[in-house]
């Protein structure tokens, strides 16, 4: 019988060798026949022909032989499966528990893998997506491509188009424009791109056409392409919108195309326009200014060129540029670095994803141990059945195969169920991943995921199946004699599995605990301002609202007055207590721009970069609205107009850093040699732009002296939000019917959404931890219950001899707790080793968000360790107590008679 199994395995894995052997075998026969014919006096040729005739068609014979291999394999497998199903049906509860446990483990892994697959493994959904790169450009670019990136100017774009290894270099920048001519003015996020942008990315419009070279020439009629999402949302997916004309900025824009539902990089925008249609990009000043850097560059590396080669190309170009335009590149190491677009889009998510996949893997390990334990317990009960089969001549291999088949049935059923579970969680996962990467919408269950699930299920089944199968020695006689008593070795393995489960659960719970504590720490952070009863909104005036033909000073005056008027109108809404205007506000996704400045009487040594501050705008009441105290000097006043001396306010951090031993109030600063001097009039307390980052050095200037087209407003009011929003819309309409007001959010919502990524990670790891805890608790309860069952007689004797019930109870509980404590010790050791090994990862700042996985706690946070240990011990205690109480309630007489 063992040969039988081996033939079957051989037929699976060594098919080729079997074929060769069959060839040799048949050839031998034909050769012998030929020889025989030759000895009978036939000519060699005729002898061979006759031999082949007598033998029959060789190909047909081979087919028949192969059939015999296959049919036998199928027959045996079918037999095993039939038998396995029958034996599982006899114990449906047991099978169900295993299948559910398995489904949870596989579900968790499939879910996370489907994200890994979509985000990290699959190529970008563009033609040859792997050849697309982002170019980072700035000083010392090699050392930190992300943070040193200053973008490209229009001139520099043209220069880098010379790179011969790149088949297309295209630009992108994001603007907000107002679309007019519909019921309400709409503020649209706009991607301003090169004419061949979509060609280089490899995207064809769903309706209409892409941009062509002629669209991107100065004075060409302005055209728009709509994103699929915006088209669906705003036009209900009506293709007749192609050809429609809307007013935008100072001219009519015609819709020429609609994109297919592809993920948009680098960010999701509503519409696209060619660079000639953007009033800023097409201005002569922008086109001529080598230092006017505002563009993001994408490029396609030529198919035959390696990324490394194209980098050499870029380096040469950079060297030439720096040599030719010394003044425009004062800082060292100016250059461009090509980074694969795919890496760029997933960078902030990669670490989190691998850690999540790791935790899901831990869950699967625990699932594996738990099921192996259940199977072991069942093995002991099936001892008789198995012994009888062995006695009747079933070989060890045959029995092993049977047991593994049963495990595989369970594993695959559980796996399929897990796949269904994970399919249901896809929407949730997309929402989760959206916070990290624009690739989130590509998450799906594809062939890769199916293979992964199948592979992991089978592997898991083989592992949890082979532990009990191999643990059992096929000693027929003792098992038959002993009745149902389990063997010592299987008890040891069961204990070992419990220890393993507890230690893995401990590590998982530590991960959950540490991230949860970090979240709590972040939530406890004082941002430096109030978040209650504050409503935020955006107001964006059209670019051409104040005619561009006006001289610049007058235009600034008019814009300034426009917002002052708007502010006054907002104040008339009944119930408004306070309000402030700005460019952006803390906790918002839009961060203030860093800008360089210099202090009066502190000339910078040549070649030193100017110190940087976060540049913010504020109306006079901005600070009181936020409850951000002015600690020295004064706040802005309504008299700080464009006609008055220019003033600024610094934050405490900035004051401490740049005026360490003096009072900054009264000192003067400026943006650069050509900029006017600005007097510092006050110091305000620090605020945090992000809760998990320390406050930046900030510089505030009056909105009135520095008019903006796009503003944000914060309103302090106890009115219901809906009512307040209606009020704002009403006064905005009265102020300017073409002014869109949007992004209404309470500051509490903003704060909550700022924490959303962290909360999402915590909930996922927490869920895994909970899963592990439940499975482990069930495992402990199962093992102890089983052991109690086996020792019923012993307990009966003990009690008959006078052992108190409490004594028996303690005996059983101790048995369980010993395992738990050993598991805890190993888990603690493992957790310390693991966090140390991962230390550089979990405390590393994510490149763009600056997030760290752990915040404000150490990886060996004693509170977390103690808490997790306490929870595990408590749960284990409860799990032990249930079977222990049954042991203690054994009636000695019944127990003794039972055997």
């Amino acid at each position: 019988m063992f040969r039988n199994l081996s033939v079957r395995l051989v037929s699976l894995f060594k098919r080729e060798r079997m074929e060769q052997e069959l060839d040799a075998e048949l050839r031998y026969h034909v050769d012998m026949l030929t020889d025989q014919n030759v000895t009978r006096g036939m000519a060699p040729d005729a002898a061979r022909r006759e031999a082949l005739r007598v033998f029959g068609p060789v190909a047909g014979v081979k087919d028949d032989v192969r059939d015999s291999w296959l049919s036998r394999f199928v027959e045996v497998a079918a037999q095993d499966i039939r038998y396995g199903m029958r034996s599982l049906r006899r114990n449906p509860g047991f099978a169900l528990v295993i299948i559910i446990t398995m489904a949870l483990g596989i579900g968790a892994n499939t879910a996370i893998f489907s994200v890994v697959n979509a985000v990290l493994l699959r190529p970008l959904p563009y033609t040859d997506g792997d050849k697309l790169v982002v170019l980072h450009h700035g000083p010392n670019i090699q050392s930190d491509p992300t943070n040193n990136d200053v973008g490209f100017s229009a001139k520099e774009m043209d220069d880098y188009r010379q790179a011969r290894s790149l088949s297309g270099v295209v630009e992108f920048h994001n603007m907000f424009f107002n679309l007019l001519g519909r019921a309400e003015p709409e503020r649209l996020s706009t991607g301003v791109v090169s004419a061949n942008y979509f060609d280089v990315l490899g995207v064809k419009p769903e309706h209409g056409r892409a941009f062509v070279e002629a669209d991107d020439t100065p004075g060409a009629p302005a055209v728009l392409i709509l994103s699929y999402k915006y088209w669906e949302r705003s036009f209900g997916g009506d293709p007749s919108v192609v050809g429609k004309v809307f007013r935008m900025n100072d001219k009519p824009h015609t819709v020429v195309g609609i994109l297919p539902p592809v993920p948009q990089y680098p960010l999701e925008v509503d519409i696209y326009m060619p660079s000639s249609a953007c009033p800023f990009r097409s201005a002569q000043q922008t086109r001529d200014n080598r230092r006017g850097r505002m563009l993001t560059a994408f490029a396609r590396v030529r198919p035959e060129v390696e990324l490394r080669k194209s980098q050499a190309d870029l380096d040469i170009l950079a060297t030439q540029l720096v040599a030719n335009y010394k003044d425009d590149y004062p800082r060292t190491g100016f250059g461009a670095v090509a980074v694969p677009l795919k890496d760029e889009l997933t960078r902030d998510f990669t670490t989190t994803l691998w850690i999540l996949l790791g935790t899901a893997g831990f869950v699967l390990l625990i699932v594996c141990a738990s099921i192996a334990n259940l199977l072991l317990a069942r093995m002991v009960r099936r001892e008789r059945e198995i012994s009888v089969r062995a006695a009747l001549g079933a070989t060890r291999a045959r029995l092993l195969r049977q047991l593994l088949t049963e495990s595989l049935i369970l594993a695959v059923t559980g796996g399929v169920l897990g796949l269904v579970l994970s399919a249901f969680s896809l929407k949730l996962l997309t929402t989760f991943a959206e916070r990290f990467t624009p690739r989130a919408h590509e998450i799906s269950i594809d062939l890769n995921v199916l293979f992964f699930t199948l592979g992991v299920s089978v592997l898991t089944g083989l592992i949890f199946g082979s532990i009990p199968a191999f643990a059992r020695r096929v000693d027929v006689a003792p098992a038959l004699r002993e009745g149902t008593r389990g063997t010592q070795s299987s008890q040891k393995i069961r204990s070992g599995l419990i220890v393993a489960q507890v230690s893995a659960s401990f590590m998982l719970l530590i991960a959950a605990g540490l991230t949860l504590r970090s979240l709590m720490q972040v939530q406890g952070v004082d941002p430096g301002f109030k978040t209650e009863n504050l409503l935020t909104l955006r107001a964006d005036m059209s670019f051409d609202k104040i005619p561009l033909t006006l001289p610049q000073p007058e235009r600034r005056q008019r814009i300034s007055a426009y917002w002052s008027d708007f502010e006054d109108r907002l104040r008339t809404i009944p119930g408004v207590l306070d309000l402030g205007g700005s460019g952006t506000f803390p906790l918002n996704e839009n961060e203030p721009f860093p800008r360089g400045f210099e202090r009066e009487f502190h000339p910078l040594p040549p070649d030193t970069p100017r110190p940087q501050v976060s540049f913010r705008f504020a109306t006079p009441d901005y600070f009181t609205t936020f409850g951000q105290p002015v600690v020295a000097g004064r706040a802005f006043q309504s008299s700080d107009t464009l006609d008055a001396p220019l003033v600024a306010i610094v934050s405490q951090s900035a004051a401490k850093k740049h005026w360490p031993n003096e009072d900054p109030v009264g000192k003067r600063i400026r943006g650069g040699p050509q900029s006017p001097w600005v007097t510092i009039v006050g110091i305000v307390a620090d605020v945090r732009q992000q809760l998990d980052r320390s406050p930046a050095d900030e510089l505030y200037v009056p909105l009135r002296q520095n008019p903006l087209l796009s503003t944000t407003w914060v309103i302090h009011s106890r009115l219901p939000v809906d009512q307040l929003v209606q009020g704002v819309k009403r006064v905005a309409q009265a102020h300017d019917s073409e002014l869109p007001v949007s992004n209404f959010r309470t500051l509490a919502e903003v704060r909550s959404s700022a924490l959303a990524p962290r909360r999402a990670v915590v909930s996922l790891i927490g869920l895994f931890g909970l899963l592990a805890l439940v499975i482990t608790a069930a495992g402990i309860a199962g093992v102890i219950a089983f052991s109690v069952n086996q020792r019923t007689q012993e307990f009966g004797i003990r009690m008959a001899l006078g052992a108190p019930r409490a004594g028996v109870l303690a005996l059983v509980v101790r048995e369980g707790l010993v395992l738990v404590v050993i598991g805890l010790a190993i888990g603690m050791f493992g957790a310390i080793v693991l966090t140390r090994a991962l230390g550089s990862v979990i405390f590393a700042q994510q490149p763009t968000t600056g997030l760290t996985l752990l915040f404000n706690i150490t990886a060996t946070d004693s509170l977390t360790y103690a808490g997790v240990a306490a929870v595990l011990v408590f749960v284990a205690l409860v799990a032990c107590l249930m079977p222990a109480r049954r042991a203690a309630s054994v009636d000695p007489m019944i127990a003794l008679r039972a055997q």
Partner: protein
Amino acid sequence: MAPKSDLLQGTLDLLILRTLSGDPMHGWGISQRIQQLSKDVLQVNQGSLYPALHRLEQQGLIEAEWGSSENNRQAKFYQLTREGRKKLAEETKNWERLSSAVARVLAGI
């Protein structure tokens, strides 16, 4: 392809098992022996022997090993397993019962 002989289903298996009840033999030897012992009455299409051999091997009734043949070439030698021996005894008995029953019926007419 089914064997082009009038042999009853299972009869070829029985013949093979019987032939192998002695020393291990290769396929060529088995076919020669069957022809020789049956005095050429049983003309088996020789190729059809092999699917049967492999089926019996898969069923664990015979096992095979590569070895040197009488003319010093590598050949696959088959021999009965313990189960094959049991099966042979069983099938022989069945066959004898069947053939004597058939003989009796034929004699009766």
